[in-house]
């Protein structure tokens, strides 16, 4: 299903339709994430992907407006490159552990410690929150700073022009 939506996004040239499809895509992704037991992530994806980013894209579309121009050349080269990359990656997956394999390295490293000890050590039943804020506090501080910086960047990019407009008037 998601593959179909993605394919539709590739084909569709009206950007408005693409944005709406993007919203649907995000909701489907959120559903898939619930199915994969990642409820925290699914919640974020539903609110961010389907909510905020759709609104933002629409806002940006309002500013840049429009339909996409017809691609100039025939897209054979990019298609070939993409398919080649995909092929290599599929070959790569053959060496990876199968889905839901309890012996996979990902379940052997730090995860058991997080799951078994976090309630005792932090008193927070939601392991994701505990890891996010406590064990990986530095990471999250960094991420928050990135969000902060991006916000500042947007302000810096979009504010200056406004002042110029005012001067002209």
């Amino acid at each position, binding site marked *: 299903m998601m593959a179909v939506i993605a394919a539709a996004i590739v084909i569709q040239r009206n950007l408005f339709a693409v944005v709406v499809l993007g919203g649907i895509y995000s909701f489907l992704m959120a559903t898939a994430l619930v199915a994969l037991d990642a409820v925290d992530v699914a919640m974020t994806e539903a609110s961010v992907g389907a909510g905020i980013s759709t609104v*933002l*894209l629409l806002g940006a579309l309002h500013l840049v407006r429009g339909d996409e121009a017809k691609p100039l050349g025939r897209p054979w080269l990019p298609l070939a490159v993409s398919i080649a990359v995909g092929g290599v990656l599929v070959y790569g997956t*053959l060496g990876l552990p199968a889905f839901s394999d309890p012996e996979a390295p990902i379940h052997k490293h730090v995860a058991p410690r997080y799951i078994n000890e976090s309630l005792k050590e932090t008193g927070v039943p939601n392991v994701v929150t505990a890891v996010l804020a406590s064990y990986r506090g530095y990471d999250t501080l960094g991420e928050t700073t990135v969000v902060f910086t991006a916000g500042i960047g947007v302000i810096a990019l979009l504010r200056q022009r406004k002042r110029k407009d005012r001067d002209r008037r």
Partner: protein
Amino acid sequence: MSALGHFSYWVTIFLLVAGLFIVIARGNLVKKLIGLSIFQTSVYLLYIAPGKLIGGTAPIVGTGITVYSNPLPHVLILTAIVVGIATLALGLALVVRIRESYGSVEEDEILRAEEAALRDEAT
């Protein structure tokens, strides 16, 4: 090594390739950004899918549950989503600025405008 066992990877790869194709093949900058975010969602799947254990539940400690999916990728992706939207907004802001100075968001038109400007400067 069954086909079923690797299905999640292949979905991921399909999405990744679709995103990659959009980024390479399309000249429209907004479309490119959307392609980039599809690429990004494929990475979310790549991280989350291996953390799932069939029969397990979400990593919220409760009584009588012993199998949880791996919380670590959830944490990483959770923050990645929010950072992703912030950077997407930054990209869109850049696109808006480009549109304002070149009057277009098509890559080739921008390049043409740039070349014309350079030629004007030379003469």
